[in-house]
């Protein structure tokens, strides 16, 4: 019996193992495994779109004894996005690391990270989530340190330790849930969850631990140095996917597991943190002197938007309002995933050409790499939320919900955040217009530049305009 869910986890893991055994063929095996993993993940997404949620009980043991995998619309949407981004990153990396010593190390770790991501989005067992979180944290930290510089190692060490603290906190929450409800299965626990001290404590521990991993303000301090010092393809994966995984889990637990006890004031607290993240992250991005630091702070801000949805979801008047907020959340997250990955990949190209990423001195580099600059522009526009990106429609719904529920104070936050984003993106793009000679070709290195450009085009044109199918996938 073919199990598409298990396959989506197995492919990248198989890739990691085969590259570990045959490091000489890393790049070839890498592309092969990347294509396989992407196809299997898209297969899951299409199957879900076709026939609704998929569940599989691994080892043939009934849940809760066995571990369950589950792909519902939410998971499938992210699975598809993550694998597309990961495929783009892989293609880019095959050029980026082509003559670098780090290539033998990059590929197996990268596929281990990919395994963790796929496993995380499919998991429905709370302890299994802990294992995937650790797999993700370890591989991400190891990948981030691949640039080998002192700052990258110390930033990623900090990331590793904080991540460990976060997942241990999460695990204590899981333990409390097992104590009180006798199961580790998300769905089963959610069904029997009752308000009370143990569920409240578990909620606080798990959401708190995950917020640390998701870099939710004020727990974001580890993110900018870690993401800014990693090699560009790794930064792309970290910022676009890894952080997204943690905030996804926050939402998942909030809506699925703790729906019964997550009250409006707790949601408001998370929302306020999110709003502060939007302003603070955008402001820091505007002030950043280095391109990658700018991109990293922009991630902090975007995570803030995602947290800002929680109080509005809590205050939504009816099921329809909730549903459209959920779609908006997914649109925002997917667009950010694609756009931020593209942004970092393009940044990497600029950095390779100039040898640095100081914004003030970029000058001619942007001009000489039209395709990369174009990707930066498109991705930047998607990050700002210019139409027709998914971010734009998400913000539309967000503002609508804020006005409708009377929480009008989010509106100036969103407006200000958008304008700040505009400032930091165009501070950069303005450098592309110089009087340097015209570059002879639009594209110089097809694989490296087009992967970034395609991701940006998807972010700008794909997600927003595909809102309908995405909503269908979510079952809304």
């Amino acid at each position, binding site marked *: 019996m073919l199990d598409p869910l298990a396959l989506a986890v197995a492919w990248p893991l198989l890739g990691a193992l085969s590259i570990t055994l045959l490091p000489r063929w890393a790049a070839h095996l890498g592309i092969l495994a990347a294509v396989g993993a992407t196809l299997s993940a898209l297969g899951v997404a299409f199957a879900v779109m076709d026939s609704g949620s998929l569940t599989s009980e691994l080892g043939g043991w009934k849940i809760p004894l066995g571990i369950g995998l589950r792909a519902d619309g939410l998971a499938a949407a992210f699975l598809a996005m993550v694998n597309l981004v990961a495929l783009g990153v892989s293609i880019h990396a095959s050029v980026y690391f082509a003559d670098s010593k780090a290539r033998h190390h990059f590929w197996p770790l990268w596929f281990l990270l990919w395994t963790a991501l796929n496993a995380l989005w499919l998991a429905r067992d709370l302890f299994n989530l802990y294992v995937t979180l650790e797999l993700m944290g370890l591989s991400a930290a190891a990948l981030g340190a691949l640039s080998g510089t002192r700052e990258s190692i110390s930033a990623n060490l900090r990331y590793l330790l904080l991540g460990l603290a976060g997942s241990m906190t999460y695990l204590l929450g899981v333990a409390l849930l097992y104590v009180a409800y006798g199961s580790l299965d998300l769905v089963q626990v959610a069904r029997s969850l009752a308000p009370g001290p143990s569920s409240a404590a578990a909620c606080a521990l798990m959401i708190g631990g995950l917020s640390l991993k998701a870099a939710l303000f004020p727990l974001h301090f580890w993110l900018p140095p870690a993401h800014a010092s990693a090699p560009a393809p790794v930064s792309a994966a970290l910022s676009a996917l890894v952080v997204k995984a943690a905030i996804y889990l926050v939402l998942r637990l909030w809506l699925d597991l703790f729906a019964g006890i997550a009250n409006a004031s707790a949601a408001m607290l998370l929302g306020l943190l999110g709003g502060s993240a939007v302003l603070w992250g955008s402001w820091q991005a505007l002030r950043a002197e280095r391109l990658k630091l700018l991109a990293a702070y922009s991630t902090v801000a975007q995570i803030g938007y995602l947290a800002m949805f929680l109080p509005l979801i809590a205050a939504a008047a009816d099921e*329809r309002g909730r549903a*459209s907020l959920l*779609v908006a959340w997914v649109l925002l997250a997917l667009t950010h995933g694609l756009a931020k990955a593209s942004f970092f990949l393009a940044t990497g190209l600029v950095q390779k050409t100039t040898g640095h990423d100081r914004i003030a001195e970029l000058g001619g580099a942007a*001009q000489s790499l*039209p395709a990369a600059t*174009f990707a930066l522009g498109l991705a930047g*526009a998607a990050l700002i939320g*210019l*139409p*027709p990106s998914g971010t*734009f*429609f998400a*913000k*539309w*719904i967000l*503002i*609508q919900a804020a*006005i*409708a529920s009377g929480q009008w104070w989010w*509106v100036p936050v969103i*407006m200000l955040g*958008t*304008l700040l984003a*505009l400032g930091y993106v*165009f501070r950069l793009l*303005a450098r592309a*217009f*110089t*009087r*340097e*000679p*015209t*570059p*002879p*070709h*639009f*594209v110089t290195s097809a694989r490296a530049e087009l992967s970034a450009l395609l991701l940006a085009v998807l972010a700008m044109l794909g997600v*927003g*305009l595909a*809102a*309908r199918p995405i*909503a269908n996938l979510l079952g809304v």
Partner: protein
Amino acid sequence: MADPYLPLAIVLSSALPGALIFFLDEEFHRLRTALNLFGAIFKLILVGWMIWGVFHGHVYLSHLELLPGLELILSADALSVLFVTLSTVLWLVTTIYAIGYLEHSPNRSRFFGFFSLCVSATVGIALSGNLLTFIVFYEILTLATYPLVAHRGTPEADRGARIYLAYTMTGGVVLLTGAVWLQTLIGPLNFTQGGLLSTAPESLHPQFIWIFFLLLAGLGVKAALVPLHGWLPQAMVAPAPVSALLHAVAVVKAGAFGIVRLVYDLYGVEFAYGLGLLDVLGAFAAATILYGSLKALSQDSLKKRLAYSTVSQVSYIALGASILGPIATIGGLVHLVHQGLMKITLFFCAGNYAETLGIHQVSEMNGVGRRLPWTTLALTVGALGMIGVPPVAGFVTKWYLGLGAADAGAYWAILLLIASSLLNAAYFLPILYRAWFRPPPPSWPEEHRFPTRLETDPALLWPPLITAVLSLGAGLFAAAPFSPLEWVRLIAAREYGP
């Protein structure tokens, strides 16, 4: 049965060539030109088809539902056809001009790519069937014009582009907020003849007033309503075809068109009048008309003088919208076309002086009529039209605005028109006098000879001549079927109903 493809095809007919042009190597000169012209002519054919169809009562509707309440709609009503036709015709002319103007200059693939996107966005604005779609294309327009303004890469261009962006994007955010607020109150905001709001409960009226100001502020930035006009003179650093496009077709017009949509098809002109909003709009328009003209008087730079003239002239459209009654409406709407034709002529001419003789200042223009007679002739037609001298198109506008104002009892507007026309004469006539009657200097600042018998490059000469003839024609044949005026009468008749 509605045709779902034509509106989309009209938008894509320039967007796709534009996207392809980005990928062209710089030296693929012919291919790029071919793509440009193919897109422009193909679009013109499609628009012709659409005019024929709309005239015969066909319905064109492309739509994409994203989520309940979030729908992208492209449709064709008489008003959108007016604007689409204007932008498509002028795009073709401007493309020819730009090809001549930018010959041998760097980064042409980038330029023409964004140029095409810019027109696609304008056409999208024209065809938008609801406010959401309008905003989508409105922001895309901002995004696509920024690189055109910044194109030259000089510090001034950088500065001008930043200011342009800061103004328009802030306006965009305000517009978005107003739109979402309104949609929260009354649901999807489809543009509807006669407006949407008159049936809404009275308790919402105070909010409607606030929302009107938000929307007006958002649109007023692009329409360069005082005090939101600050970007327009700064954006003059752009190459001449871009200025032509910005002032006559795309950006400023998009703002003015948005105000027209806001007043007629969202609020409804009578409802807006009832809330007292038209008076406010009229006050802003009047202030802008006077301010722009006064500022234009003191500018020595030709392009800046034209820029302030735009600030002033575009507000005639808002003025027409702010006076209740079909006649004023006709005057305002027809100026959408007339101002476009005349202003683009003027900018083409300014570009010719700069490219051929290196002339940028009004004070350098002595005797240019002898060196560039045809260009100066076109300039003369455009300038006289702006002043309102019959039979050029500008006269028709002012005539109808004046009649409409008298009809509605808004006599202040007649005074305003007289004052503004005097000011127009005061800043245009000296230019004409210099050009025709002062003796030319011994040498021009930076003369450039083209290998042709004509006074300048043919690609630079024909466009202003064509648009000058069109401005004359729009005035002379104002009563002919399918003239802008007749078409606008049709729109006004529908808005005010039987």
